[in-house]
């Protein structure tokens, strides 16, 4: 197990290096003068020169690249142009909010998507199947800001069941949980759709296998046949699809955080964009690309847990 993790991490190193290089190039070698963007076209040449000095833009590009790489390797993402605070501190301050939201939406995806997919496969072309199909079509069709606004209109503005602004004091657990409901449903909607589809098609295949017929002919109960014999086969594709769409989930988290006014990485990205804070943006790109690489490793590790045939050693 540990050997597998180490091997997997070693494989990830070239990818991470390339990701860092891409971010560096994107943020630095773009057309136009960054000081023009940051200071506007009214700034004096002296102010521009001072800013270039501060950003290290006067140095040769290779020196800048080495500086950037060394910094990141030391866990330092530099300082924000707008606030001059260390970017790592800003990221760590909001990271728990984003992780909380993402995990909650994965739970929503699993708790609704798996039973719905199983039921749809069991009663193929029946009511549950049609419901599952329409539900998952809606799930993949809703842009996250549209579903968020509709949820907000229905449950916060009309019914007043949930607060319009989802931030709650962190010591008020009930309040925090209540504020998490709508955002996690919103973010989970897409996961429900994908999980339902994958579970349904996997279960359809598994339920047609010989061993399921054998189990049925042995007189085993429906619950035992479906959940113990057929269902475990679906776990690998479900884990795959969750891992695969984590990138989309991170993108949707940005929108969910804006609509429900929650702190988080997504909110920070938009702040960085609005303030033209390129060092903050660069740091956030690094963080989100790292998150995807780590998620891929976790996905590979989970295969070993859900499928005994996958050897992780």
């Amino acid at each position, binding site marked *: 197990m540990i050997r597998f993790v180490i091997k997997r991490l070693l494989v990830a190193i070239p990818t991470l290096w390339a990701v860092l290089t891409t971010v560096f190039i994107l943020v630095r070698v773009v057309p136009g003068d960054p000081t023009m963007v940051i200071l506007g076209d009214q700034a004096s040449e002296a102010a521009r020169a001072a800013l270039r000095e501060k950003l290290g833009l006067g140095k040769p590009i290779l020196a800048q690249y080495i500086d950037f790489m060394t910094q990141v390797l030391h866990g330092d993402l530099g300082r924000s142009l707008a606030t001059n605070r260390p970017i790592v501190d800003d990221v760590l301050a909001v990271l728990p909010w984003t992780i909380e939201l993402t995990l909650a939406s994965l739970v929503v995806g699993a708790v609704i998507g798996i039973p719905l997919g199983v039921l749809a496969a069991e009663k193929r072309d029946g009511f549950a199947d049609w419901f599952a199909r329409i539900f998952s079509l809606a799930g993949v069709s809703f842009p996250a800001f549209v579903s968020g606004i509709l949820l907000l209109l229905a449950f916060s503005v009309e019914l007043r069941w949930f607060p319009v602004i989802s931030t709650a004091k962190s010591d008020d657990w009930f309040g925090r949980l209540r504020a998490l409901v709508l955002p996690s449903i919103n973010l989970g909607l897409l996961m429900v759709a994908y999980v339902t589809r994958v579970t349904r098609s996997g279960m359809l295949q598994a339920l047609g296998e010989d061993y399921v017929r054998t189990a049925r002919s042995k007189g085993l109960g429906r619950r035992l046949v479906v959940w113990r014999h057929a269902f475990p086969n679906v776990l690998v594709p479900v884990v795959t699809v969750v891992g695969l769409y984590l990138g989309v989930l991170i993108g949707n988290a*940005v929108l969910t955080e804006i609509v429900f006014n929650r702190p988080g990485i997504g909110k920070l990205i938009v702040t960085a964009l*609005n303030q033209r804070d390129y060092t903050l943006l660069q740091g956030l790109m690094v963080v989100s690309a790292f998150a995807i690489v780590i998620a891929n490793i976790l996905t590979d590790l989970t295969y070993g847990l859900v499928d005994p045939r996958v050897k992780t050693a």
Partner: protein
Amino acid sequence: MSAVTQPRNTVLSRALRTPGLAIGVVIVVVMIAAAVFAPWISPYDPDDQDVMLVLVGPESGHLLGTDAFGRDVLSRILWGARISLTVGFLSTAVGVAVGTAIGIVAGYYGGLVDRLVVAATDVLLSFPQLIMGLLLVAVLGASLTNLVIAIAVTAAPAFVRLARGSTMAMRERDFVDACRSLGYSDVRIMFLHVLPNILDELVVMASLWLAAAIRTESTLAFIGLSVPPPTATWGGIVREGFDNLLDGPWLALFPSLAILAVMIGLNLIGDGLRDATDPRAPQ
């Protein structure tokens, strides 16, 4: 000739028998018509402000109400369809064309070219699509051309992968050997003989990506990174509605429904085409 065209006919006839696909086609055709005929069917000029009728509801002679500047929401949605659909179709076309060309070349030649291309797509796919789009538009500047470029860049890697994989499978087939022995050039084999054989898969994925592209455009507009105001964009109108959510909920609601309808239509088409081209699907 009939031997070549027959499988295509089967796919088409199977596709047309799928009710979902037909519904999808109707929705998308209506939306395209709305965009094309916007100048003639809009009840008002989309940029005309009526300061006496600010944020009034659908009961005011404006079918879908007015926004915070007193502009007619229906007219703005109709005109906004032009931006959303243009950006969606153009960026998908560019992404598919560039991605497919690179993928076919990588799959056909293999070797170092292939390894470099795979490494490059791996890196591009490590970034969340939306965040990559955000960054590109932010650094390039928000304009119609730059939106198309940014969204095409996020779409291309997926098509590189697909075209590369299919081309590698085709490369080993006898007809490619036959073409080679006839002395055809590599370019001719790749684009006149391999490409038509992998087109089905590309079309299915392109239809699903079209939905993703339109979603990305409306999302960028919602964040404030699309064609700048006062030009009407669906995402932009939703944003104005979101900022006035308590005073005029319809302002966010109606453009949201327009976006949703296009998404559902395109996804129905994509799913229907996928089922129709999937040999494992029941007849």
